[in-house]
């Protein structure tokens, strides 16, 4: 092939559904536009820089970078490599050169929606959310979820906890313990955004019999009968679209993808997926209806959500 795309991940891909979607995206794009593709996995901040440099060095036409972790690096490297196009997914930078493009998601819109579901479904009026690590990005999930809950059930209390520890993104044991602790404190709807820890939360749900929500891809089959809904993030679609635009010569491309653009979603909103998804939400048509109503408000702008990532 005469084109060469490189996808640089910000962290180990592992079970991180989001990063795996990136991999799927680059492969789809490669197929669609006839390019060789490669994935460079980073494990540390230093790796990210070395990998971006390596991608340029190996002659990539388009370098796709997933995550705001790459902002500084792109600012440094892009001006020195005018022949290479850089696509940052998940974040945009100001004052960028022509060869830097971005596609961002509004995950908080979907998280807000699952919050709505949790707020309606809770019987104990106590819900919880576990995040991997207390970082701004994950507040897009935790805080938006909490806001969603409150919007339909002002009395409900939301317990926000973090996995933390030595290995926050892949510690099912600690994630499970957090979920168990929240359940013991009365929570019956728990949202998990813990990457590798999700499995631990599912385990807890099976043992203690509570309901969970998760992120990125349909995880309902992982704990049948316990997963209510999942926020979806269409990274692959976004990537293919954006790369197409870049190949057409677009400069400084900016794509912002929320519910409206189909960049994020939840199973409840997906008419064709819902029935076979294995998600519990399919059994609650009234909740689905409410979620679709709120989604509509968000899409037409009548309900404005703030990005929790910049809230603090």
């Amino acid at each position, binding site marked *: 092939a005469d084109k060469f795309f490189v996808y640089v991940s910000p962290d180990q891909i592992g079970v991180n559904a989001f990063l795996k979607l990136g991999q799927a995206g680059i492969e789809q794009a490669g197929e669609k536009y006839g390019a060789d593709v490669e994935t460079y996995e980073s494990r540390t901040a230093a790796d990210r820089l070395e990998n971006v440099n390596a991608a340029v060095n190996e002659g990539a036409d388009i370098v796709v970078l997933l995550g705001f972790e790459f902002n500084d690096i792109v600012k440094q490297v892009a001006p020195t490599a005018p022949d290479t196009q850089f696509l940052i997914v998940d974040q945009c930078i100001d004052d960028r050169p022509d060869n830097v493009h971005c596609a961002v998601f509004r995950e908080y819109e979907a998280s807000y929606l699952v919050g709505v579901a949790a707020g309606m479904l809770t019987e104990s009026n106590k819900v919880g959310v576990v995040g991997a690590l207390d970082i701004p990005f994950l507040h897009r999930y935790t805080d938006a979820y909490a806001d969603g809950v409150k919007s339909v059930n002002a009395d409900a209390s939301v317990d926000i906890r973090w996995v933390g520890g030595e290995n926050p993104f*892949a510690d*099912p044991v600690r994630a499970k*313990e957090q979920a*168990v602790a929240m359940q013991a404190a009365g929570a019956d709807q728990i949202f998990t955004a813990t990457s590798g820890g999700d499995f631990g939360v599912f385990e807890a749900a099976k043992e203690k019999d509570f309901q969970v929500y998760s992120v990125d891809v349909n995880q309902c089959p992982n704990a049948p009968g316990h997963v209510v809904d999942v926020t979806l993030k269409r990274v692959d679609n976004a990537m293919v679209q954006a790369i197409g635009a870049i190949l057409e010569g677009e400069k400084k491309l900016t794509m912002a993808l929320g519910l409206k653009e189909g960049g994020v979603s939840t199973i409840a909103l997906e008419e064709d997926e819902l029935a076979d998804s294995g998600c519990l939400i399919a059994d609650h048509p009234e909740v689905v209806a409410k979620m679709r109503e709120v989604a509509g408000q968000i899409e037409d702008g009548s309900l404005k959500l703030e990005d929790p990532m910049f809230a603090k």
Partner: protein
Amino acid sequence: MFELIADPSFAASIPRFVTPILLAALGGALCERAGVFNIALEGFLLVGAFAAVLGAYFSGTPYIGALTAMVAGMALGVVFAEFNVRRGGDSIVVSIAINLLAAGLTTFFLRAIFDVTGAFSDPAIAGFAPIRLPFIEDVPLLGPILSGQALPFYLALLSVPFLHVFLARHRLGLRIRAAGENPQALRAGGVSPKRVQLLALIACGALCGLGGAQLSIANVNLFVENMSAGRGWIAVVAVLLTRGRPWPLFFIALLFGAVDSLSFRVQGLGLAQQFTDMMPYLATLIVLVALSWWRARRAKGDAS
């Protein structure tokens, strides 16, 4: 705060935190007493966790899973012995290499055998069922701790007095202590200290393997890359702190487990996660300072 501690799920969670740390630390203690500075407990635990899932998945019973984990740990012990004891590589370097090796091999075989990356979860993985102890489970406070736990926890509990007696009275225990203290003298007595150290490492592997099994087929039923997540290092600290004595080790592991379990429950009180994560280490330092202050006072009292 009081509610947190009185919460029965908190008490019940302590053994789940304690068991892997305790088992790994007991293994490390054997090495320590045999004069092998083994700080690769993290790698041993990880290999155990992976092998346990492997065995439990293919056999359909957690017992084979635990056995596989122990055998895998023992094999890793042999590798450690080959490079540290026989070839004389520095123990810290060998430990670090073993940790790398464990991370590499588990992820590699995860991909090679189960064709997944990151994590492997499958209903076919047979986990340990909780063992309920009649009568004991009704005891307030202690009941939820002692009853309803998985097999490795009870084995870990039994290991503590057993190892204590073993080191004090068993032929191999005696030799292990001698290998750690004055290997030259052991050699002059006609016993090869290197062989004793090899045996200690193998036993350490078995204990750590079981600890790994607790992580992957008792606490949860799945394997995630790097799922030991620093517990081996805590075990190393426990070993160093107690110089490998089983009973003190037990209490330190208990303390670490409880603080660890408590620390992220405290998040519920609104403390920043960075500070709750710091708690186990600060608690250790405080215990250390208190311990040596107490020792110094006692020595002074002794002398006068």
